[in-house]
Every structure is written in structure tokens, then in C-alpha cells.
């Protein structure tokens, strides 16, 4: 038997690349299904479209056990603090896919009740357009996310998430200091951000 050389036993690569390869092929989605897009999501999970082909069939309904937040449907202002809470609870590293126009921009609901895009309150990685997007579109979005994961630096992801934690801490301290409800705190932070010319609070 030939002697094992170092070239056979070692695969030279970068740490980022090998970790990202693992990450992108084992996404555990948390479906935050709120409206119509959740129905298309059901189609995507069921027999015809079969999302498990992408290594992401292990749905976890607990944020603690998942690393991909799929926001499926309209997020209203009433839900905004809930969404922030859920994102904060998720395991690191974490990604967010905003599925459908309502989640991405408020869509056709430009009203007092609807949050005009979830990127105002949580960081978003991939936006999937459509009202609702077809299952193929959501799958394409997931593939785009996989591409994004392949190329990103681990450190950048960490910092990206840290920026959210900072804003979440600020929300909590606002609530404690002024005795605000989560809704009022988020609203106040959005107002501040607006005055500074920003569209988001994280």
C-alpha cells in the first residue's frame, strides 16, 4: 500500500469557504407565515415543488432552532416588535428572506396599519418580489441566498448581526427608561431615524 501523502489527506481551502459551504447547504428555515405568501410556501414545501432538494427542508417553528427567517406575507405595525423579537431570538448566524411585496415594501397596502417594508426594523438579505411570488420564485430567492452565503466573509456577517443587537438593546433600554410599550419604542426609534434621514432603525 502506497504511503499516504499530505496531498491526499488535506484539502487546502479558506476557513470562510468551507464554513460557508456547510452553512449554505444546511439552512433551517423558520417560516414566519402571516398571509397569502404562506399559502404559496405550503405549495413550495409539498409534493410538486419540494423545497427539500435544497437542503432546507428541516422546518423549525421555534426561532431558537433556526437560522433562516422566511417572512411570508404582510407585516403590520402591530407585528413589528414581534418580528424584531423573533429575529433577536434566532440562532447565529442568521439570514432573512423577505418574501412577497408586502414584506419587502408594504406592497399595495400603503395604509396606517402596514409596515412599509420589514427592512425598516430587521436586516434583510434577499427580497423576493411577487404578490404572491410563485414557488419557483421563492426557490430562486433561496438559491440567491445560497450564492450570497458562499461569498460572504464570516466577520462581516457577525458585524451585520451585531448592528441589529445594538438597536435591539436600545429598544429595550428605551422601554425600560421611559416606560414605553414595544410599539411605542419602535415608533420612537423610527421617528429618530427619520429625522436623521435614515429609513431603518438597525
Amino acid at each position: 500500500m502506497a504511503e499516504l501523502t499530505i496531498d491526499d489527506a488535506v484539502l487546502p481551502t479558506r476557513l470562510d469557504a468551507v464554513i460557508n459551504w456547510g452553512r449554505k447547504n444546511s439552512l433551517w428555515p423558520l417560516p414566519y407565515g402571516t398571509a397569502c405568501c404562506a399559502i404559496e410556501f405550503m405549495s413550495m414545501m409539498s409534493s410538486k415543488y419540494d423545497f427539500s432538494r435544497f437542503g432546507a427542508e428541516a422546518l423549525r417553528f421555534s426561532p431558537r432552532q433556526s437560522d433562516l427567517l422566511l417572512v411570508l406575507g404582510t407585516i403590520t405595525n402591530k407585528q413589528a416588535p414581534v418580528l424584531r423579537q423573533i429575529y433577536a431570538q434566532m440562532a447565529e448566524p442568521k439570514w432573512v428572506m423577505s418574501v412577497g411585496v408586502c414584506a419587502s415594501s408594504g406592497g399595495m397596502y400603503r395604509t396606517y396599519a402596514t409596515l412599509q417594508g420589514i427592512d425598516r426594523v430587521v436586516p434583510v438579505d434577499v427580497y423576493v418580489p411577487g404578490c404572491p411570488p410563485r414557488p419557483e420564485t421563492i426557490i430562486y430567492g433561496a438559491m440567491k441566498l445560497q450564492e450570497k452565503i458562499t461569498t460572504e466573509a464570516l466577520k462581516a456577517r457577525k458585524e451585520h448581526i451585531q448592528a441589529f443587537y445594538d438597536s435591539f438593546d436600545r429598544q429595550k433600554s428605551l422601554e425600560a427608561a421611559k416606560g414605553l410599550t414595544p410599539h411605542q419604542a419602535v415608533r420612537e426609534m423610527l421617528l429618530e431615524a427619520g429625522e436623521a434621514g435614515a429609513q431603518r432603525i438597525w
Partner: protein
Amino acid sequence: MNPTNSTTIQREGDHMIVNLGPSHPSTHGTLRIVMELEGEFVVKATPEIGYLHRGVEKLGENLSYHQFIPLTDRLNYCSSIMNNVGYTLAVEKLLGIQDPPRSQVIRVLVSELARIGDHIVCVGINAVDIGAFTAFLYLFKERETIYDLFEMAAGQRLHTSFTRIGGLMRDLPENFLPLLDQFLESMPRTIDEMEKLLTHNPIWYDRTKGVGKITPEDAIAWGYTGPCLRGAGVPQDLRKAQPYLGYDTYDFDIPIGTTGDVYDRYLVRTEEMRQSLRIVEQCVQKLKELGPGPVIVDDYKIALPPKEKVYTRMESLIHHFKLVMHGMDTPVGEVYSATEAANGELGYYIVSDGGKSPYRIHVRPPCYPIFNSFDEQVKGTLIADAIAVLGAMNIIAGELDR
């Protein structure tokens, strides 16, 4: 142990508060239920809704009558086409017009397909919630065919916006009926398969039989409509009781239950799927008898003129411009029009001041009063049963909160 009549309920500190939702796998959209538990028994369940309140009614006051049609899709997104039909019927009632016979038959056809699709989601997800995944996969195969049919007819799988005031967006395409025939052939088999998996399945039976019982009197007092009311034994179905779209010319039966529990609601929904298939078959027959014809009224003050006329005739161009820019002329008055949607009575209340947009538009969603009774339905039952009851109520957050 039944906590409602035991003395342990008096003890403070024994109760556990469990927060179900707004993000919970069994909540069907976003709603939140705060459950007070003693052991595994529910002492009190307080639903909190409004997490999907998107301001549809306010939006409707600022849009023209035609522009509101896409918003109706997103009310009950499991059977959007029925919402389109219900809304256009309400506006047609306000205008005092009727759509052409061919359009009526097609509206019935697509409504019944949507009813089947809605029941598929309801039964399938109800089963998934209490641990039976297989039926869901079988049923969703057929639902995909319904999606394909809708996509052929309207160009969109889910949010069809198929109807127009005074008729339909367009006639059914050529290849619609062949695919429908395939569906009519395979769907009864799928229902049989589903029944094999569920109806006589002892686990399904034990989990649903006697859970969420309701008397007919209570059901009426709570404002139940649809399968939940019929499951309780009240034979109220607007398709028979107050026929619209010529439903009185179709031959179909209204299934009713006896106890109103989850099992009865499931049986009622299953039978309604079969009855809907019967209606669809009759629709196909009627379409053949009627032959080709218009599917929208010939009044260009209400419906857009065909494109070739807009491009060639001055008058049609003016009508097109007027209708798009100024909307319709509506009489001053108020109407309430109700249709039998998959969940029950779907009502639209429109107040018109004669302007291009409704002065006030209100939707009466069928699951709103049903969900109101949730506390009474689950009090004293196991928490696992509460999930079964929630599934059988078929709460669709989009129409619940509007």
C-alpha cells in the same frame, strides 16, 4: 379531571400562561391566543387578533370600485376567486345590473373549484396540525391542478382578480376544459384516498370526535355560518336558501352534521368537496349547451370596451378614458350582498355617495364571529384539542383582520 368544576381552579399560582402565537405553526396566519392552563386543561383562552389588519376597508374608500377587486383576493387567500365573485355581485347589486349567462356559469364553476381548494387547505392543515402529514401531500397534488386551472383562466395562481364588474376579465381559454376533465377524474379518487387515511383512522377519530361540540342554538347565537354551522346540524346554505348566480338550477345536496364537533366539520367539508365536483360537472355541461357568448356586459359605462374597439373607434376610446380616469357613475344608496364562501357567509356592505369610490365598504368575514367563540369552545378541554378546534374553524387571518 375536569378543571371547570373542580376546586383546584380556585388556587392561584397553579395556572400556567401559554402564549400561542403570533408566530406559531398552528395559528394559520398571525393571531395570538393567550391560554391559561391548569395542567393540560385550558381554563381560559383569550384570542388577540389584528396582527394582519392591513386597513383594507380604509383603502377601499380611496380606490375606485374596479381597483378594489385585487384587494378582495387577499381577504381569504385560500379561495380568492370567491371573494372576487362576492364583491362584484355586491357592486352589481348596487348598480342594478346582471352579468351575462355565460359569465354566471363560469363564476359558479370557478367558485366551486375554489371551494374545493379551500377545503383542501382546511382539512389538510387541520390534519397536519394534529400530526397526520400524509393526507396533506395527497391533497396538495390536486390543489396544484386547481392552481393550474386558475392560472390558465386568470393568469395568476393565487390572486386571480378574475371577475370584473358586470362579468369576467375574459372567457375560459381553450385548454381549460381538457385539464378540468382530468381534474374531475382524479379528484374523486384523491378524496377517497384522503378518506381512507382519515375518516376511519382511529387516531384521527379519537382526536376529533367530540372535540369542539356546539349546539345549533349556540352556533346561531355566535353567528356561525358555513361548514361550522352545517356541522352543528343547521341546513343553512345561501346557495340553496337565497340562490344567486342561478344556483337554483344546479342539482346538489347540502351535507349537515349532528354534533358540530371537529369530526363532523371534517365530514361536512369532505362531502361538500364531492358536491362541488357535481356542480362543476353540471357547469361544464351548461357551458357546452350555452355555446360561445359574451362574458361581460355590453355597457361601456361599466365595463371596459374591448381593446380592438379602443384602438379603432373614437367613442370607445372616450369610454375607456372616462372609465379609467373617472370611474363609474353609481347610484346613491347602500347594499349588503352575501354569498356562500367556503367558510360561510361572506358579506359586502357598500355605501355609495355616487362618487367613483365607495363611501364606505365593509366586509363581513365568515370566520370573524366563529373565532369569537373560541374561548367557549375550548374551555375545559385539553390544549391539544384546542389546536384541533382552531384548525377546524378555518381561520384565515387575511379576512379575519382585513
